[in-house]
């Protein structure tokens, strides 16, 4: 699985490294015994595990710089890590490298209420930002499902999304400035607290770069006013295609919902068993459509959405009567992952995006693949922005089943690319989707990515082996995989 390793041998002994790190950091900030390293062996994608050589937990930016300088001097790989909630193995440790945890940098440095910004350290939890500014009627908009635990530094590294992206954007749309420590330990300010900065848009480049270009040590986020009102409508359909038509019609009518979620029958029933949200169990698909804004706007749009849903053929259209009813409808959706988790010993969460109009055909193909692999799939879909989360059910204890799941998941991602979408909407590439990068990007684009990486990290020390595959890796993968009848890398030698 983790078979790409540009740094197979360390240039320093572990004992010497630990001694030198202890000269830079307090004793309890350097972990090197196997039992202490255990908690860092994986992130949210626990199928991939690797003990780090050493874990460091600096308290200050100066300590981060000192660690980076030391690693640069000895040419040691560095993997940065936030809360470790990522779902693509982006924080999987390197066996001969330093795992750099930013968890202890967890202060909210300042809040500018009038200017609606907050300056925070990378280890601050996503939800903690919104909680800290709630008294001012403000919040931080991106809300990944892990927001109670995930940290803002990881959010920036992954360009995290959530259920409100269609209206409020991704992380990249909601931050103004970051401070990074470069691979050689220099502190740089990227972006500005104005709304743009001089020169290239390095802020966009850094956002979602998965720890490959620098270590994020401070973030200035934008805050938004909490909407005056939010209301949610549930609609049930006996055909997935009808639900997809309803989504297109709502958006064509000029309405941008704050959230627009779809679930299929298996997901509906799992969520209903778990959360008792009152979902219609016999529906083939349900839509949850949330409208927010000024009271007048919401009232107007709710009426129009209800009319569209009815016209398209919804078998039921239900407006949450009060805040408790609204919370219950969302509880079902938000607990969909653990709910599906109760259906089988393990599940594997995929994350592709597609142009929405292809949803019916993509779901049909997924159902066909499901039958072919003999593995059940529940589909949860951020329908507004085309982000599909198929959950493949399996049993990790069954010999070879994980490999089957990975093959099946790979096929789903390739299907997303085939219809004009992407292999990842919000979880990142990490280790997990590195092979599918060879399907989404050609050799020229990958070569350009490597040139970008080289500009920031010429020795390839930052999170090596992740996010962007080598052309050799693609050639090996491509030898197995033929896309649209074409070998992806015909110019490369085969091994």
């Amino acid at each position: 699985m983790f078979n790409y390793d540009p740094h197979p041998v360390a240039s320093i002994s572990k004992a010497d490294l630990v001694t030198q790190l202890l000269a830079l950091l307090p004793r309890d900030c350097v972990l090197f015994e196997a039992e202490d390293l255990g908690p860092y062996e994986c992130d949210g994608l626990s199928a991939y595990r690797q003990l780090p050589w050493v874990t460091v937990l600096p308290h200050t930016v100066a300590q981060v710089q000192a660690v980076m300088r030391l690693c640069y001097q000895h040419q040691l790989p560095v993997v940065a890590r936030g809360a470790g909630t990522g779902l693509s193995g982006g924080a999987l440790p390197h066996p001969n490298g330093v795992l750099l945890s930013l968890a202890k940098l967890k202060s909210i440095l300042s809040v500018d209420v009038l200017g609606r910004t907050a300056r925070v350290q990378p280890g601050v939890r996503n939800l903690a930002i919104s909680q800290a500014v709630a008294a001012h009627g403000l919040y931080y908009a991106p809300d990944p499902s892990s927001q109670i635990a995930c940290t803002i530094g990881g959010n920036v590294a992954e360009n995290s999304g959530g259920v409100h992206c269609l209206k409020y954007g991704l992380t990249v749309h909601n931050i103004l400035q970051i401070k990074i420590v470069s691979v050689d330990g220099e502190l740089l300010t990227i972006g500005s607290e104005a709304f743009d900065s001089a020169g290239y848009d390095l802020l966009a480049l850094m956002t979602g770069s998965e720890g490959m270009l620098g270590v994020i040590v401070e973030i200035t986020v934008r805050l938004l006013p909490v909407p005056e009102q939010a209301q949610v409508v549930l609609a049930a359909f006996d055909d997935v295609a009808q639900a997809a038509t309803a989504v297109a019609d709502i958006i064509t009518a000029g309405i941008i919902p704050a959230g627009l979620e779809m679930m299929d029958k298996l997901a509906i029933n799992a969520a209903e068993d778990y959360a008792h949200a009152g979902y219609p169990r016999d529906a083939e698909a349900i839509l949850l459509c949330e409208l927010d804004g000024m009271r007048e706007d919401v009232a107007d749009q709710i009426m129009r959405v209800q009319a569209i849903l009815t016209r398209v053929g919804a078998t039921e259209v239900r407006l949450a009567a009060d805040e408790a009813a609204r919370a219950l409808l969302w509880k079902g959706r938000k607990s969909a992952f653990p709910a599906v988790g109760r259906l089988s010993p393990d599940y594997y969460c995929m994350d592709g995006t597609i142009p929405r109009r292809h949803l019916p055909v993509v779901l049909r193909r997924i159902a066909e693949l499901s039958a072919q692999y003999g593995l059940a799939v529940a589909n949860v879909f951020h329908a507004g922005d085309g982000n599909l989360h198929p959950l493949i059910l399996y049993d990790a204890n069954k010999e070879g089943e994980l490999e089957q799941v990975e093959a099946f998941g790979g096929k789903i991602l390739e299907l997303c690319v085939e219809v004009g979408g992407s292999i990842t909407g919000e979880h990142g590439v990490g280790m997990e989707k590195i092979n599918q990068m060879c399907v989404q990007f050609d050799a020229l684009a990958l070569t350009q990515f490597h040139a970008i990486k080289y500009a920031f990290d010429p020795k390839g020390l930052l999170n090596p082996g992740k996010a962007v595959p080598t052309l050799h890796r693609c050639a090996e993968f491509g030898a197995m995989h033929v896309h649209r009848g074409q070998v992806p890398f015909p110019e490369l030698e085969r091994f």
Partner: protein
Amino acid sequence: MVELDLTADLQQQVAQAYRTKTPLNICAGNTKAFYGRQATGQKLDVSGHSGILSYEPSELVLTARAGTPLTHIEAALSAHGQMLAFEPPHWGNAATIGGTLACNLSGPRRVYTGSARDFLLGCHVLNGQADLLHFGGEVMKNVAGYDAARLMAGAMGTLGVLLDVSLKVLPMPLHKLTLVQTGICAADALVKMNELAGKALPLSASAWVNGDLYLRFSGAASTIAAVKQNLAGDALAEDEAFWLAIRELQHGFFEGELPLWRIALPQVAVQPEVAGDWLIEWGGAQRWLRSDAPAELIRAQVAALGGHAAILHGGDRTGEIFQPLSAGVALLHQRLKLAFDPARILNPRRMYENL
């Protein structure tokens, strides 16, 4: 409109320039020819490479070749009740979507809905070795690979020749209202703009000029009626013309001979202590200055407040136009330039002397 695919032709021209190390001056409508440092090099005309390649109103996505006129795109969107939500300045009838993205130009709605870069989903570009590259895509959520598409926005053609762009578009609000409050000083205007932006109101533009504060709201009829009832200020009858004049730098403020500076600042930053006339936009994030004060003084004042300054009209275009970068960030710029354009043939020195 004639729609042509000139990809092969443009690729051949860049390849030839790469072989012969000939600097190229990328242009199309020439409406931004005055912007940035003086252009040099052999003309690479992208204007013929035009046409809308796809537009799906229900997907909120439009893809167009770089030489497509902005007016053409806006008309196509308007027919479906949609718009480019960053409200791009044209600065001339021949403005193209490629030039707009290359300069990352956004208009009055910018701080309330997003910038040109924010709405860019993907693009095809030719790098300085004539490699045809595709970054991003036509979907709103896409975190595969580095975001090299957004890196192109505002790079002024120094990293690649834009061939086409895919943009997220938004529904056009049905109703709008501009309220004017008179006799307000700059400091009070900044506070008012930001207090209102901190409330759940459909603010879509703000400006302060000559002691008057202009606030535009956009939304449903009922929303606009509620705003009119609850907020102070007189409704501006010719609001369309007012915001167009601001966007296109045609307001009376922009007349005259004094150098024109575009200054970006944190929204609530105090006014820099520079003598001159000011026009404030974007809740304070974009401020225009007419002043013959020394460039060094303006840049130092603005930098101290966390912003940056660029000279649009009246400066020495062989000198630096944009705010100098810190040493570490400047080094990253040079390395990135070489990563995309090793022979430095794409708009060399158009942005900074050493790029």
